[in-house]
């Protein structure tokens, strides 16, 4: 047993130290694995960042009201009357003897995306007077909140980074009306950072959508208050056709769109892995071929087939791990933590950060190891089967 470990160690050292003899091939297979891993990580980190941002947007103790069956705010409708009834529901918090509730209207407006210099959709949200108070993670970091009834808007910091022409103090023309940007808000890790906010009444009138609300947010006393609130609303015939759920649950549902990136990650990742695998197998077969006299000699001397197998395996794993680590480094340097934007729900741009979480990095390492393992397995068997015969050692 100790001898087998000695043997494996010696054969592995021989393999690894002879890598420079196959330098270009080895480098090529390292790079192939690195690219595979980087691409896989790109999409997984994208999906993760997207999921985290969308899921992180909702609170447990805020009830979200939408029309049943509408999976996006855009095709939801809540009437003014329903809004009034809901504001008086059980558990609704008050501030200055007014209910902490906000009827909202989301419209889509155009903006110029900095990265691509092309037009893209931005979410323009009309919110009620309590809209800001309902979102505890949001703080005005520059300027002030818009004043009710005015053509003023506040802009999310993420949106400013991604879109041109929305700087603090600027006046922007949207759908034929001028709007003044009076404040900038930050809402780290939430979808709101990608939005423009204005007074809901002004939004309704300037976008020609009188009295139209799509959603309503209601601040409840606690997360436990959501269920009774829903039971109460379900029992009221005037509130039929509405769906009530916690804001967190609503955004968790929205986050499922990042599944598409996970699918892309794995489809691309696996396709590229097959390519990288072909490269690895090739490199290892060539390693076995160039060392065939060496392997035959070792076998004649008394080294076991296992040692030859493991030597090849370890070389393959070493190469693929180097590729994996390189891929992870590329990912960390090139995009981890970088802000990006993509089409979120409601066909608007959503700004978020790539997120290389530890499980994703582990996934990448496992992927690299699988490539190395499969890439070394069959060449390893060929090495182990190398006959220990004198004429073979003479080549």
């Amino acid at each position, binding site marked *: 047993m100790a*001898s087998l470990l000695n043997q494996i160690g010696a054969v592995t050292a021989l393999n690894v130290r002879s890598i420079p003899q196959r330098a270009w091939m080895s480098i090529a297979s390292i790079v192939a694995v690195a690219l595979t891993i980087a691409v896989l990580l790109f999409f997984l980190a994208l999906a993760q960042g997207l999921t985290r941002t969308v899921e992180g947007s909702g609170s447990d103790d805020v009830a979200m009201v939408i029309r049943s069956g509408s999976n996006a705010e855009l095709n939801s409708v809540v009437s003014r009357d329903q809004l009034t009834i809901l504001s008086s529901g059980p558990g609704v918090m008050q501030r200055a003897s007014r209910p902490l509730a906000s009827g909202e209207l989301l419209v889509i407006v155009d903006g110029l995306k900095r990265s691509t210099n092309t037009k893209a959709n931005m979410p323009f949200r009309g919110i009620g007077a309590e809209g800001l108070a309902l979102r505890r993670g949001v703080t005005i970091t520059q300027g002030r909140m818009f004043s009710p009834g005015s053509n003023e808007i506040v802009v999310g910091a993420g949106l400013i980074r991604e879109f041109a022409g929305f700087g603090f103090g600027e006046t922007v023309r949207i759908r034929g009306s001028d709007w003044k940007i009076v404040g900038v808000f930050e809402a780290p890790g939430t979808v709101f950072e990608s939005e423009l906010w204005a007074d809901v009444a002004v939004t309704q009138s300037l976008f020609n959508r009188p009295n139209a609300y799509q959603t309503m947010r209601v601040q409840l006393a606690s997360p436990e208050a959501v269920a009774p609130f829903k039971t109460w609303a379900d029992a009221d015939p005037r509130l039929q056709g509405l769906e009530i759920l916690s804001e967190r649950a609503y955004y968790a549902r929205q986050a499922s769109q990042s599944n598409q990136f996970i699918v892309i990650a794995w489809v691309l990742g696996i396709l590229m892995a097959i390519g990288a695998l072909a490269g690895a197998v090739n490199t290892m077969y060539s390693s076995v071929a160039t060392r065939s006299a060496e392997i035959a*000699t070792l076998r004649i*001397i*008394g080294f076991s087939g296992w040692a030859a197998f493991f030597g090849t395996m370890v070389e393959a794993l070493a190469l693929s791990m180097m590729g994996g680590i390189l891929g992870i480094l590329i990912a960390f340097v090139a995009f981890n933590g970088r802000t990006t934007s993509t089409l979120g729900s409601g066909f608007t741009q959503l700004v978020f950060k790539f997120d290389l979480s530890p499980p994703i990095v582990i996934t990448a390492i496992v992927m690299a190891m699988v490539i190395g393992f499969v890439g070394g397995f069959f060449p390893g068997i060929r090495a182990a089967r190398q*006959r220990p*015969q*004198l004429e073979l050692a003479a080549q």
Partner: protein
Amino acid sequence: MTDLFRLTDVEKSYTRGKEKISIFDKLTMRIEEGDFVAIMGPSGSGKTTLLNLLGGTDKANKGEIEFDGKRIDNLSEGQLTAWRAANVGFIFQFYNLMPILTAAQNVELPLLLTKLSPKKRRDNVATALKIVGLEDRAKHRPREMSGGQQQRIAIARAIVSDPKLLLCDEPTGDLDRTTADEILGTLQVLNRDLGKTIIMVTHDAQAAKYAKRTLHLDKGHFVESELAA
């Protein structure tokens, strides 16, 4: 003298496609312990095949091969591998050193198959290098040495684990006369002073003179009168 090898009715054939090529047909022979046998014969006569059978690197189709009183023809692949490591030192025409290992590391290779401690391994390597007269080349790599020196390193590797038997396939086939004579002289010393049984395949009649006796192989058959010796 006791027999180191006893071959009885050994048959060896290869199949190439549908064709069966018989190399040995009922080969019976003995080799005494302490012998130094040169095997000569035309190309294709089966010399290397015989070394493979004796060295446990190939299997006979039929017949018995006894080494030191024990049969080796019925050992499994793994048992044969261990048997080789313990009993046989191989010396090749092209030395077959690992180019990236130093002389000492090359010589140490067979010791990695033993339970010896690193310290003991180092001592044995030093002894083996001393026997071949290259203790000052321990740190050199094969390409920094002449062919003759490389073959000496290979001899050191073959004897480092103190096997009874040395099998040499054309050990001087790649060397000039003078160097060849030095190598053959070393083999002679190993045979005479250390009691190694040596079986050496060669095309060179001069080389064969260093052996105690020469067997001539032709189409799988030895000259009977020589076998009796």
